[in-house]
């Protein structure tokens, strides 16, 4: 803006100078055109210099403040996960309890594979009922584990078999025990993992299936860690766990690595968002009701404004009559 105003003023100055020069040239015949050329070079010097200064300023500013600045290197960022067309993530689809996918098989994978290191502490047995398994199956599952009772009369805490209201037990007593068993790395709780990581389901699926056979040439893998390009920092304490035919599905689905990863990812998404099905349904209901109400309010507005919008104001000026005509005419008696 500054440069433009400077240019404009310079142009006006140049114009006056050119006028003066042309006048003198026309007046004195001895002056040649070389004087006019010299004048045009001088008049252009200012706008050219101002333009160069402005362009240089913009370039310098872009160099200083316009470049991308990354807090982390691409390796520290981790590879962005591939986006997969998750069926259960569609706006009009529920989680797939079993028929084509997943929740029941995913829970089986969690129980047989993940649960040896990862807890799922926010999921009680009761929430599995009517979603993944029947009441009897869930009760049988709960009774496999022991939980603390309320203190009895002597203040002793005893053990009792689990009930439906109990939460899934973790593999370790506490975080310190988990770290001690895993080379100082804490296996995170998986209850909210889909919501807790960028990329959600895509990230978890990519991580589970993304272990290369060998780390690529030049990659630095610290002692005790494994290479996974999708993990931020690429060094992950968890080794590859999913191999073909690791579990045996009760519905005889071929247990490939990607099948197991897909099932357990969908299960973990359910664990993180067990309310998602109801939420989607409620969202559609809200959209249906509010669209009717919106249409109704638009109609009421048009109805109320119809008379205002369509009325016509007409101004009839009063008929002007000369005031003298109202005066009594003098009798013309001469």
């Amino acid at each position, binding site marked *: 803006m500054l440069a433009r105003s400077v240019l404009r003023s310079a142009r006006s100055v140049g114009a006056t100078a050119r006028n003066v020069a042309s006048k003198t040239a026309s007046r004195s015949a001895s002056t040649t055109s070389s004087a006019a050329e010299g004048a045009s070079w001088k008049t252009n010097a200012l706008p050219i210099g101002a333009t160069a200064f402005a362009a240089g300023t913009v370039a310098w500013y872009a160099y200083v403040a316009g470049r991308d600045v990354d807090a982390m290197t691409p390796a520290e960022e981790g590879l962005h996960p591939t986006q997969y067309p998750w069926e259960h993530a569609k706006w*009009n*689809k*529920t*989680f*797939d*309890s*079993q*028929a*084509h996918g997943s929740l029941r098989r995913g829970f089986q994978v969690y129980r047989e594979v993940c649960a040896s290191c990862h807890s799922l502490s926010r999921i009680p047995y009761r929430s599995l009922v*009517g*979603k*993944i*398994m*029947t009441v*009897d*199956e869930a009760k049988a599952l709960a009774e496999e584990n022991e939980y603390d009772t309320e203190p009895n009369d002597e203040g002793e805490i005893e053990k009792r078999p689990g009930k439906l209201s109990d939460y899934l037990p973790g593999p370790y007593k506490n975080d310190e025990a988990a770290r001690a068993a895993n080379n100082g790395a804490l296996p995170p709780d998986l209850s909210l993992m889909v919501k807790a990581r960028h990329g959600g389901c895509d990230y978890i699926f990519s991580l589970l299936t993304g272990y290369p056979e060998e780390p690529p040439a030049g990659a630095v893998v610290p002692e005790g860690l494994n290479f996974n390009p999708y993990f931020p920092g690429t060094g992950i304490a968890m080794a590859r766990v999913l191999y073909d035919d690791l579990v045996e599905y009760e519905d005889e689905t071929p247990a490939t690595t990607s099948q197991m990863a897909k099932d357990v990812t969908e299960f973990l998404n359910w664990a993180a968002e067990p309310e998602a*099905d109801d939420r989607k*349904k409620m969202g*559609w*209901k809200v959209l*249906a*009701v509010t669209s009717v109400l919106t249409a109704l309010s638009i109609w009421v507005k048009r109805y109320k404004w119809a008379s205002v919008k369509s009325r016509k104001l007409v101004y009839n000026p009063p008929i002007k009559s000369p005031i003298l005509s109202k005066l009594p005419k003098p009798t013309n008696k001469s």
Partner: protein
Amino acid sequence: MSSFTSFLYNSIFRRNTTMLATVFAGAFAMQLAFDTGSDRVWDSINRGRQWKDIKYKYIQKAEDDGDDDE
């Protein structure tokens, strides 16, 4: 038309209590109808995906196990 509006007026709007009762009953009925209808649409879109569509497999199995025990 006019007979219908006069019927409407005489049966509903003439007394405030009957109109209020109509509003409340209508809200209840509309809620019930809307919820039932939207649930039906939702379940038909998601047929075969929800637990209620597949639980017969596992219920049946549990009963079979019970028979085996006896």
